């Protein structure tokens, strides 16, 4: 598995100013009544740059919930260090830990609003807990309700709100203490796609306008694609791939990343190709190539140049143009007749144009 260069890159960028840093963090739980332990996290190194949105993606059970709970001390690492703004969280006493937690907001998959409190009182809760005076609370909650667009729901109870509105209350509550960091635990997983987009847009806005660093965990690539600057892929307690979202999406290396990307248009083969594709060429077969366009190349007349300059007859099997972390990104899956030398020549030609290619296989 060759991913050292990319990790190094991400680590370098982060080392400049990381608000959260994991250093060789492992976490294991006692395995019920049986002897031995369940390893939830295995030697994690990760950094979240200040002011960015960092996503941690993995399947359920991969360890991402444990990972994010280490940041605010809801879980303690078995070994290693979790540094928040340079301070190791693990050895903090209860009182110091509570002070630290007040500077870290958190939102949850199931919103976790108090059913007995109105919207206003829910947002006011962290301020009450910190001992802020009632008048000051009023002065801080009202603009927050405006920010999340719920000023008119001020005196409603959570049971009267939709899922998206509840999460907006959750977000207002999480940033009420003006934290330096926001943790998002599958915050959009219980929402429908449309509501998900509006909640993500709100998070993006908060990130940009307030300069708030966000660390989010999710199992949905769509979430990562639309708002994350950096992404780490976690599988069975290990970070298997990490880097900028754009790099990881356009050049996924690990199998888990590729599997998670399968739901994104243009990343998968159409069914009629997938069922016929073989790893080795056979007589008369065509090579299947994925061409990845990034940035401005999305507009170049690449295919016509291929046929003119290399004499190729190119067959288009699928493709998509999308935007990842704010940058245009296109994929095109094509097939053409040609031997290994021709394939190599074609790839070299495309590389010369600054395009990434990948041979997916051969179809008869």
């Amino acid at each position: 598995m060759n991913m050292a260069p990319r990790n190094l890159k991400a680590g370098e960028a982060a080392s400049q100013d990381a608000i959260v840093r994991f250093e060789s963090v492992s976490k294991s739980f006692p395995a019920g009544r049986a002897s031995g332990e369940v390893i939830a996290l295995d030697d994690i190194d990760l950094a979240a740059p200040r002011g960015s949105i960092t996503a941690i993606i993995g399947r359920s059970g991969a360890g991402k919930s444990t990972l994010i709970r280490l940041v605010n001390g809801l879980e303690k690492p078995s070994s290693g260090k979790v540094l928040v703004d340079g301070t190791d969280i693990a050895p903090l006493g209860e009182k110091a830990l509570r002070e630290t937690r007040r500077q870290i907001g958190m939102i949850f998959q199931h919103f976790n609003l108090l059913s007995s409190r109105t919207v206003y009182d829910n947002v006011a809760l962290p301020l009450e807990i910190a001992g802020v005076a009632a008048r000051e609370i009023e002065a801080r909650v009202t603009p927050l309700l405006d920010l999340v667009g719920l000023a008119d729901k001020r005196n409603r109870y959570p049971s009267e709100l939709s899922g998206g509105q509840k999460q907006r209350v959750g977000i207002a509550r999480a940033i009420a203490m003006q934290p330096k960091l926001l943790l998002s635990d599958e915050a959009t997983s219980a929402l429908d796609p449309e509501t998900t987009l509006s909640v993500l847009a709100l998070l993006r806005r908060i990130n940009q306008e307030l300069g708030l660093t966000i660390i989010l965990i999710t199992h949905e690539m769509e979430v990562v694609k639309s708002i994350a600057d950096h992404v780490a892929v976690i599988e069975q307690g290990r970070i298997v791939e990490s880097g900028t979202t754009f790099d990881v999406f356009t050049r996924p290396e690990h199998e888990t990343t590729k599997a998670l990307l399968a739901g994104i248009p243009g990343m998968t083969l159409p069914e009629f190709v997938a069922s016929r594709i073989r790893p080795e060429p056979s007589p008369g077969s065509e090579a299947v190539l994925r061409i990845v366009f990034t940035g401005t190349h999305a507009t170049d007349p690449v295919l016509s140049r291929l046929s003119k300059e290399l004499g190729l007859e190119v067959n288009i099997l699928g493709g998509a143009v999308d935007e990842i972390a704010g940058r245009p990104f296109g994929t095109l899956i094509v097939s053409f007749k040609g031997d290994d030398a021709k394939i190599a020549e074609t790839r070299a030609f495309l590389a010369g144009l600054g395009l990434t290619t990948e041979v997916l296989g051969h179809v008869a």
Partner: protein
Amino acid sequence: MSPDIAWLIVRATGQTLHMVSVAALIGSLIGIPLGVFLATSGRGELFHAPMTNRVLGAIVNATRSTPFIILVVAIIPFTRLVAGTSIGTTAAIVPLTLATIPFVARLVESAIREVDPGLIETARAMGASPFQIVWKVLLAEARPGITLALTLTVVSLIGYSAMVGAVGGGGLGDLGIRYGYQRFMPDVMLAVVVVLIVLVQLVQSAGDRLARHFDKRARPR
């Protein structure tokens, strides 16, 4: 029904209300914190103290499994110590209160356990202290359940209070036994039963309304 008998009923109603209200008040003041503690002191919980939890749980169970009438006579020395006497309405409040504490504690414990553990985690993530979590989250969220628990407690106390006639506690139950049953006065018996039914109905519907008022969770319509 003669005015004398009517007066007896009024006086007995007053005694019942006196015993029930004092026992419910003191019993709740001790029982609610005990219930909160039972619900939050298990292994890995907010006030991690599994041994104390088990010991208190055993005491609560022992008290609850002792038949009330036996409890009344068994603790007579203690009653005398607390109330200065072992007979009369005031003395009867002691065993009533003692029986109420574990009753309230168990009901409150289950009401607290109904609160979504995610809310405790949320409050911890906000930097809340354990006492803030109890006060602002657990008790606030469990308020409808606790209201119903206290309603049930008062209704049960009205029933228990009928047994303290054994130590001269007076009250409606005592009146019913001595006049209605032993002196063959069915009209007194009927009056006692009617007053008890009305009392229980009033308490129950007031409790239900209050619990509904507190309950802001979504109700299937």
